């Protein structure tokens, strides 16, 4: 029995990444258990160097095999991971497919305001955004990202809205305190500019050649425009 295959079978079946230490413990325990299997006993004195060497060899072998998965070491823990190019199918598998299309910019703004100012009334959000938010509120309510959390003690007792746990999940946040710049944004009231500064699109002053480099027509958004990418990639 080769050590590398033992480690492979362990990493293959483990529910979570395993460190060299954890692997050593399993190999040791299997060798010294009361009813230890004969095959397991010779590995009693396996050292960390042996383990590391075997793991490195496994990495090489799986790399050569070039299958849809590979052995990887992340933060000192070893695990099998799938190659990134299979993510479209894996996402479908784990049900990200049910994750609806991306939120619109309007919905994101509404959501951001609710997230930072919760609990908040619809009127307050509208005041900050300067537009009617009936549509976007409905969207984010339906998607379960916000919910009614009470009623404000003011005239008419309007509904108060807060974000839901799903909101945190959707954005990969551990908690509301994880929101970027939470402190500042909670405190500073957005001052509405007295007048829209440049509403008129015609006032663009940038020379055309510059514009072409930087400005991107909505159509170009899907694919990153080649020149810009090349410049900024590294």
């Amino acid at each position, binding site marked *: 029995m080769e050590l590398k295959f033992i480690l492979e079978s362990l990493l293959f079946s483990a529910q979570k990444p395993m460190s060299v230490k954890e692997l050593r413990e399993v190999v040791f325990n299997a060798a010294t258990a009361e009813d230890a299997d004969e095959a397991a006993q010779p590995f009693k004195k396996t050292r960390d160097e042996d383990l590391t060497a075997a793991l490195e060899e496994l990495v090489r072998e799986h790399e050569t095999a070039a299958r849809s998965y590979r052995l990887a070491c992340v933060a000192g823990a070893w695990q099998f991971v799938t190659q990134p190019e299979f993510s479209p199918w894996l996402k479908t598998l784990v049900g990200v497919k049910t994750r609806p299309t*991306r939120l619109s910019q309007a919905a994101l703004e509404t959501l951001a305001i609710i997230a930072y100012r919760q609990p908040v009334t619809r009127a307050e959000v509208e005041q900050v955004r300067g537009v009617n938010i009936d549509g976007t509120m409905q969207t984010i309510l339906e998607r379960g990202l916000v919910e009614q959390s009470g009623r404000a003690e003011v005239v008419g007792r309007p509904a108060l809205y807060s974000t839901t746990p799903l909101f945190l999940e959707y954005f990969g946040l551990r908690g509301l305190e994880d929101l970027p710049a939470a402190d500042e944004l909670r405190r500073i009231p957005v001052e509405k500019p007295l007048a829209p500064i440049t509403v008129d699109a015609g006032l663009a002053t940038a020379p055309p050649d510059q514009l072409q480099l930087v*400005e*991107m027509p909505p159509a170009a*958004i899907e694919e990153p425009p080649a020149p810009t990418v090349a410049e900024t990639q590294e």
Partner: protein
Amino acid sequence: MPEYKVQFEVFEGPLDLLLYLIKKEEVDIYEVNLTKLATQFIEHVDLMRAFDLEVAGEFLVMASTLMFIKSRELLPVEQQVVVENEEDGEDPRWELIRQLVEYKKFKDAAAQLQTLEERQEHIFPRLPGKIEFVSEPVTPAKPEVGIFDLLNAVNAVLKRFQLKDAGTREIFEDKWTVSEKMEFVLTTISVQGGVKFSELFELAANRAEVVCTFLALLELIRLKQLACIQPEPFDEIIVSRAVPMAAVVEAPAENAEASQPSPATDETPATDDETPQS
């Protein structure tokens, strides 16, 4: 049926005992001397009784069948009794052999199932941890920037001030207003054409100014004055003027020649046949 428990430890039934006896004789089922077998079977039944084991009815039925076969063998063919149930002169010996052969096959099959049963105890399915695709950045290049990308970016900028501010907690006057910053952002972009997100904050004196600039940015985006593009996930966000509707027509041609930056796949995957065999 308490009586079965004891017997089953020894034989699964009369057929099992018969097979055991045949095996002991080291002859094939078809070759077995049934007369001899009958004698041995009855001996064993007697033995079981001697050991005070309860003997199930099936053993007694089998014993009588064997006795019948044995007695028939002793008579000349013309004197043999014609059994009522025997169709086309079915031979009770053949009937027993047929039953034994059939039972033997299933007994073998049961042994194979047992092997499989034991084998399964040593097989462990792969139970991978759940994959999670929670955070958006996993999705490949979608350069349009969401509000949270911006918030993340400004957070990074703010962190720079965290250390600076740590010691001196002065109270700043609110020297900046969002309106002013909106003008600042627009001016900067007009002059430079487009700026990196972080450049907008380079001159900021403290966190309050950063936040002000950021809110200005948000407001301008809302007014559709600005566009934010992230060429690659995690790349620096580029802030530029939103394209005026009229201008769209002119722009696209430039982007047509999108390069295909497919990195040369020199490490061509080995064919699977080459995977190490050990």
